């Protein structure tokens, strides 16, 4: 069967995460939630430690801790704290506590690197089912709430006037973020999950005229980075997760450069047109 090939499983896992990360990543960019994504992702390592201690499934542990982290940050939002400071404290202390907690788990050999940077080549059939289940859930949720999410992102007063509760939409994004973190853990690890959310969306921005176009383009860039990164990691014998993110970052750099050149060209054209 085709799923018996570990490379096929890896590719499918990566594409699943990239597809779910694309629309969510766009909202992370639009709403300036990058640090929020980081905090949620870093808390995941605490989830790993807890699930090892309690010998539950890693996925469940990570999901619960990420959800808790996301909810705490959501609750504290708008309570008069400086958000970037608060998130910085939460993100890194969650990571530190997680790493300390993992060291207490004796008797079990843990490949910490696998959780920090992911281990996409070790994705099994059950992992694949969880990843695609989680990704499908997030994509469906985004599709269902899309207009309401967009209106809330545009302006909370406009949302209220149309009978939309922006806090509920924020909660939906928060929950989706926790799910994506939980399913992406195996693919890119906690340190690079935020990169997978942000970079494809940011790379898609200069070539998008509508929010929908940006989400679709981000999905394409994320998918290309995942498949290309897998291939490149195989050729150069490099760690897979970081290679995927490196490729995405390269695409982002190219996209920014192209946008810059296009702007210069249009300015030159405009000034040439003005002289005649």
């Amino acid at each position, binding site marked *: 069967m085709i799923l018996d090939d570990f490379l096929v499983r890896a590719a499918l896992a990566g594409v699943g995460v990239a597809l779910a990360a694309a629309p969510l990543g766009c909202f992370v*960019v*639009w*709403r*300036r939630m990058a640090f929020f994504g980081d905090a949620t992702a870093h808390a995941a390592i605490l989830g790993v430690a807890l699930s090892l201690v309690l010998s539950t499934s890693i996925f469940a542990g990570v999901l619960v801790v990420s959800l808790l982290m996301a909810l705490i940050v959501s609750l504290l939002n708008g309570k008069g704290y400086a958000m970037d400071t608060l998130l910085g404290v939460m993100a890194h202390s969650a990571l530190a506590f997680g790493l300390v907690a993992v060291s207490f788990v004796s008797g079990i050999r843990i490949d910490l690197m696998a959780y920090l940077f992911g281990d996409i080549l070790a994705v099994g059939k059950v992992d694949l089912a969880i990843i695609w289940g989680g990704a499908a859930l997030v994509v469906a949720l985004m599709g269902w709430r899309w*207009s*309401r999410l*967009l*209106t809330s*992102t*545009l*302006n*909370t*007063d*406009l*949302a*209220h*006037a*149309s*009978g*939309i509760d922006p806090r509920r939409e924020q909660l939906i994004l928060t929950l989706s973020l926790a799910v994506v973190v939980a399913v992406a853990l195996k693919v890119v690890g906690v340190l690079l999950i935020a990169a997978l959310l942000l970079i494809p969306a*940011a790379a898609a*921005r200069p070539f*998008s*005229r*509508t*929010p929908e*176009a*940006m989400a679709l383009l981000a999905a394409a860039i994320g998918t290309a980075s995942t498949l290309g990164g897998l291939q490149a990691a195989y050729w150069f014998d490099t760690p897979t997760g970081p290679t995927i993110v490196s490729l995405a970052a390269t695409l982002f750099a190219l996209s920014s450069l192209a946008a810059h050149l296009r702007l210069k060209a249009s300015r030159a054209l405009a000034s040439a047109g003005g002289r005649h």
Partner: protein
Amino acid sequence: MTLLTIEHLDVALGGQRILEEVHLTLERGEIVTIVGPNGSGKTTLLRSIIGSLPPSRGSISKAPGLTIGYVPQRLHLDATLPMTVSRLMGLPRRHSAREIEQALARAGVTEHANRQVSDLSGGQFQRVLLARALLESPGLLILDEATQGLDHRGTADFYRQLEQVRQELGCGVLMVSHELHVVMRTSDRVICLNRSICCAGTPERVAASPEYRAMFGHDSQDALALYRHHHAPTPLELSS
């Protein structure tokens, strides 16, 4: 038909009481304007009505099934969010391309349909926002200094359109404005707000009230002069 009834409304923001004991009713087809100095709670009142701010006391009741069209004072669009004018018109509910075109035509901005919202001038953006609010055929239109950034001509067009919309849709209009002379001309009722309502009534009555004059000083004299001027019969009318 009464669209909106506000009773004993208090609103506090960050422990500070912004509105106190506000009473207000708005009927169908009525244009009511709120005037008042900076920080007097005008925007807070509008935001309470749309449901953005919870009242700390009192009640705001709306007619059942009332749809609200809202044009905010300022709308900052994040540079990371790509948005064409026609896409913005379809948020949160999609409309047919024809409906959007008609709405943009009414606001006089048809040629901008495919432009990025971030490329519009302040006045163009304001018209687009009004067109968007009108697309839902609102029962109540709420405008927060909607003519900010419009030039003299644009402002005149804007109020003409407002009058037309009121006749077509029969909606109530509640707005905040600083342009006293226009307010006096276009409103059925004026409400003078400074934390609580200090005077209210027909434009002429409000303009003549001592509270209003104390609040706006010389401006109020000018506005009243303009108002009277506008309503004075022309020589032609006198002779006929």
